[in-house]
């Protein structure tokens, strides 16, 4: 048998390239750690970063965080809706994996805006934006369908000079969005796949913004603990 060269290794200590054994460094500030270290959600942290990370969770105005989450999620939603629409237009199908991408884009946008806090409120926000992002991709098709209706053509012919003010445009858009929001459920069981696809997106947005408590382990002593000397 043409077998490759065997491995001859020692397993007493882990070896790290020729530069020698690396010192323990903090995953947050990248500085060397002395004395004691902590583990925050599986990452090594020095004492200063341990308290800094913890305080970042609680500091800052909730309103500012919520607004930032709205903006972050909104940007994610616009990008996601663009991708979802482009793929649907190119292929003619709604695809579960693409819906997941929308959910992730919105979810991470909200998470970024909230400073990584997570929780029920942010989860609900992410789910709402994701739903709006996906159903907004139905708007062109709905508008097209409305334009094809004979009643619409008749109305336009009868009233050719309907004033296009910002208010009428907003009203029309709102009406179309309402139709888009209920559209997935109009076909009932026939659209069970479509509803499931949207469900995957909502689940991802929800999951990304779940409240993740900081799991702080430590302090861990570096080197042997000094022996206590009798007084």
């Amino acid at each position, binding site marked *: *048998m*043409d*077998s*490759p*060269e*065997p*491995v001859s*290794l*020692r*397993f*007493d*200590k*882990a*070896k*790290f*390239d020729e530069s020698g*054994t690396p010192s*323990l460094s903090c995953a947050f500030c990248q500085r060397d750690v002395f004395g004691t*270290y902590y*583990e925050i959600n*599986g990452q*090594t942290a020095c004492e200063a970063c341990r308290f800094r990370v913890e305080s970042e969770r609680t500091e800052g105005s909730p309103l500012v965080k919520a607004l930032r989450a709205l903006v972050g999620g909104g940007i994610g939603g616009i990008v996601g809706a663009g991708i979802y629409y482009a*793929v649907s*237009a*190119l*292929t*003619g199908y709604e*695809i*579960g*994996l693409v819906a*997941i991408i929308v959910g992730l884009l919105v979810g991470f946008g909200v998470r970024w805006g909230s400073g990584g806090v997570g929780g029920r409120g942010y989860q609900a926000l992410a789910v709402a934006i994701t739903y709006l992002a996906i159903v907004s991709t139905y708007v062109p098709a709905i508008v097209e369908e409305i334009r094809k209706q004979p009643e619409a053509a008749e109305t336009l012919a009868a009233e050719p000079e309907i004033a296009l003010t910002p208010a009428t445009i907003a009203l029309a858009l709102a009406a179309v969005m309402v139709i888009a929001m209920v559209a997935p459920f109009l076909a009932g*069981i*026939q*659209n*069970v*796949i479509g509803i*499931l*696809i949207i*469900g*995957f997106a909502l689940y991802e947005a929800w999951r990304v913004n779940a409240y993740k408590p900081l799991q702080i*382990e*430590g302090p*861990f*002593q*570096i*080197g*042997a*603990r000094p022996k206590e000397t009798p007084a």
Partner: protein
Amino acid sequence: MQCADCGSEIASTRLSCPVCHRLVHREELERLAKEAEAARGREEPREEILAWRRALELLPPDSDQSRSIAARVSALSPVVEEQAEKPKSPWRWAGIGAVVAFVVTKGKFLLAGLTKSGTFLSMFLSLGVYWAAFGWKFAAGLIASIYIHEMGHVAALHRLGIRASAPMFLPGLGAVVRMHQYPVDAREDARVGLAGPIWGLGAALAAAAVFFVTEAPIWGAIARVGAWINLFNLLPVWQLDGGRGFRALSRSERFWITGLLAGLWYWTGEGLLVLLLLVAGVRAFGAEAGSSGDRVAFGQFLVLLAALSALTLIDVPL
């Protein structure tokens, strides 16, 4: 936990002491190394690769030992693959016997996948969902196509000695196989990634053959949708099958595939190919293109794209 050498405290998630680097699983690693050496002595590369893959899980990924073992696994992998594909008897693959043996071997493997309760139950749940939307005949065909695709991945993972879960169906999304260990290089990743579409192509071709013989539209629909799903999975992005396959390809191989996609789109007019073309074009310019390439993965990619695109031309009302 306290380090036996330097007395430092070791967090539960660590594989080595942060100070003196004593390995936490030292005894188990030594046992696995002996097991691997013994397997090498017996000329059993499959047993050896299994032991080394287990050892990789217990080592810090950036350690020299991990790198050495990954290199050994990488070198052993083609040997194991070759051995798995080698016929046991020179006559076994002759003529009709070859077809019978292939169907029996793969058929047994396919049925074995159904013995897992998670696979079975999730498959029935998916079947119910697709049944409600498309009727039972198409639902059954779709489920079978997805299952065969996933079992292609399972077969490749099994052949390479990589531990993984049985397929789990997700209604509306497809199915997934969760890896418990990971490919050590781009070549392995490509073999695992492209195995699904290869088996999926087999399922689509079988459905197409029945369609051409019987002219029953349902078989044409199963063949066409099956081919489309496999084609979608060849998108060279993220953790999709195409993304795994593309990792191993050199820049010139990527450009050839991009060119082929342009031609296939011109021929078939299938919109999905535009998406594949765009993503493949971006990836062809990407800095991460493999320098040496992988002729096997390249060939598989070309054949898959051409055959699956051709199957999307089956003219049935969907």
